[in-house]
């Protein structure tokens, strides 16, 4: 962000390393209160998992942050300054990149073309394929991505590799926050591991990562904090290293008497 001093308001005090803060975000669709007073802060170099049951408001929240929806109420602070995100393009310009579940790749184009789609590098009027390919490799190497060739159509890549390409593409705009919507939903074991490694890489690069997932194993494996949504409201933020899975599941379902907690209780009785 390039800043001209007098015009911009002084950075608000939102805690060290916080990139994005949501304050009292609400969103209604007709009679349905999809989000109510959501508070969230996202820190650089941290993976924040966003979990919740179906209909808890995860997707609505992601789309609100990404600029697809505008919030009815509440405010967003990005990089210490209050912002309004009116469109996905504005969110991207700010530095909020989103990888939606359908990835939005062009199957008939190769990896380089997909990475640079809509922002191709040019030499004069002509595409600079060499430079794009060089930078693609550089980026993929940095992410330790396992793509055999960047000159094959994206259709020939596996699900994990396609996810990797989509995530790598989101990084080209040099974002500060990357939101991943269900990145492991349709993936096998090895591919899931690949994508989770990639998430680690994003954290190492100092990005703030918001990971939306249904899979508690993935969440526990890679997230630093877990924010739980329930029926459109905050239902607790947990630090992963100090929390058990069943506590989070209890927060998601709103009940403590579920199969997971029962089994855990049984186990702890047997252990003692």
């Amino acid at each position, binding site marked *: 962000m390039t800043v001209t001093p007098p015009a911009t308001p002084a950075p608000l005090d939102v805690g060290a390393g916080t990139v994005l803060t949501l304050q009292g975000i609400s969103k209604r669709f007709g009679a349905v209160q999809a989000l109510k007073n959501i508070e969230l802060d996202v820190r650089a170099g941290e993976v924040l998992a966003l979990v919740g049951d179906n209909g808890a408001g995860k997707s609505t929240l992601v789309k609100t942050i990404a600029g697809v929806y505008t919030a009815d109420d509440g405010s967003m602070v990005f990089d210490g300054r209050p912002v309004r995100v009116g469109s996905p393009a504005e969110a991207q310009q700010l530095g909020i990149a989103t990888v939606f579940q359908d990835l*939005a790749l062009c*199957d*008939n184009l190769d990896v380089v073309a997909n990475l640079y*789609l*809509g922002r191709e590098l040019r030499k004069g009027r002509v595409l600079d394929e*060499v430079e794009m390919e060089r930078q693609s490799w550089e980026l993929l190497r940095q992410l330790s991505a396992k793509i055999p*060739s960047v000159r094959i159509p994206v259709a020939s890549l596996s699900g994990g590799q396609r996810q990797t390409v989509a995530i790598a593409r989101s990084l080209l705009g040099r974002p500060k926050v990357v939101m991943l919507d269900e990145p492991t939903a349709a993936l096998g074991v090895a591919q899931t591991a690949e994508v989770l490694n990639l998430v680690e890489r994003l954290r190492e690069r100092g990005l703030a990562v918001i990971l939306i997932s249904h899979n508690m194993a993935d969440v526990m494996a890679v997230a630093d904090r877990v924010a739980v949504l329930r029926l459109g409201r905050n239902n607790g933020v947990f630090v992963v290293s100090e929390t058990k899975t069943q506590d989070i599941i209890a927060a998601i379902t709103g009940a403590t008497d579920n199969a997971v907690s029962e089994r855990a209780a049984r186990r702890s009785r047997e252990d003692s």
Partner: protein
Amino acid sequence: MTAQDSAQLPADLQDERLIASSGVSGAVSAFTARLRSGDLGSVPVVVGLVIIWVVFQIANSSFLSSRNLVNLTLQTTSVGVIALGIVLVLLLGEIDLSVGSVSGVAAALVGVTFVNQGWPLVLSLVAGVALGVAVGLFYGLLYTRFGVPSFVITLAGLLGFLGLQLLVLGKDGTINLPYDSALVGFATRSFLPPAMAYALVALVVVAYALTRLQGRTARAAAGLSAAPTSVIAIKAAGLAVVLLIPVAILNGDRGVSSMFLLFLALVVVTDLAVRRTRWGRSVFAVGGNVEAARRAGINVRTIYLTVFAACSTFAAVGGILAAARLVAVGQASGGTDTNLNAIAAAVIGGTSLFGGRGSAYSALLGALVIMSISNGLALLSLDSNVRYIVTAGVLLIAVTIDSLSRRSRQAHGRA
């Protein structure tokens, strides 16, 4: 793979899963592997063209004579130019059924303004081409603003512009273009001197080799794998042979027609625009996945508008060239044949009906196939009934190959 190995390898060849291929043999094996996986490109149409030519040559020994091949180039041009526009529209996964009518109405406009109204030739030509641009923009607007399927828009255009053509021509029905006008001269009597044709071939081959070598240096400097000079030399030599043989044969008669050269130039320019510019990349992206293209920030609307406009413009140019070659424009100009031939040419040439896959060269190859059939059957004095049936058969084969190779590509993960 050790760290030292990977430091020496180009950045794009470091993955241990890649099958190593280097040098000439590597280029050959990569090519055959691509064919096996169903990425056929223009191989089927070239094979088909060779078969058609051999069959007609056996049936009538004058088919491959210099004189007849010069005729073939003249016949191919107008259909080829129109097919070039169809290729662009097909790349988007859309269709334009009205190219025949648009070519006819543009030719009629040129005929009426130039002959009947006495306009200067240039002004008439500009009017004809501008009509094409306007028609395409109109289609594009209907498509992007109201979401009417291109099939229906252009079907309406097919009828509407046929009516407009009859209206423009008035009750006379046929307008003869003056034989000594520059337009007719260009289309019928203008041929390159043999020396100039050879010089042009040399120029093209040298330009090709130089750009390839330059690309090689740039890739090497960026730490990427580059084609070995031997492969570039072989390809340049192959290009020289492919260009020299036809030029030599054509020079045995009148030579390379200026009109055909214009068509070739349009093909090359379109190919470069499609493969090497941001606009062309966007066309492929929209043809592959509109939603992805839109989210990537591509102005999808502009792409549709420009492509429909380019298609109708090519149709108008093709229609004017056809009229110039036949020295007349009439009610039958741009009739059913033109329409179907142009669309069939693009598909036979290897441009996919499913969008996002194709090449400008398929217009050239496909038009050559279509016009070879028509020319060869005319030499054998067979009626148009046979010609229609044979052309239909070739079209069916081409579409079947497209569908089969698409399936194979999906099975081999190259869709």
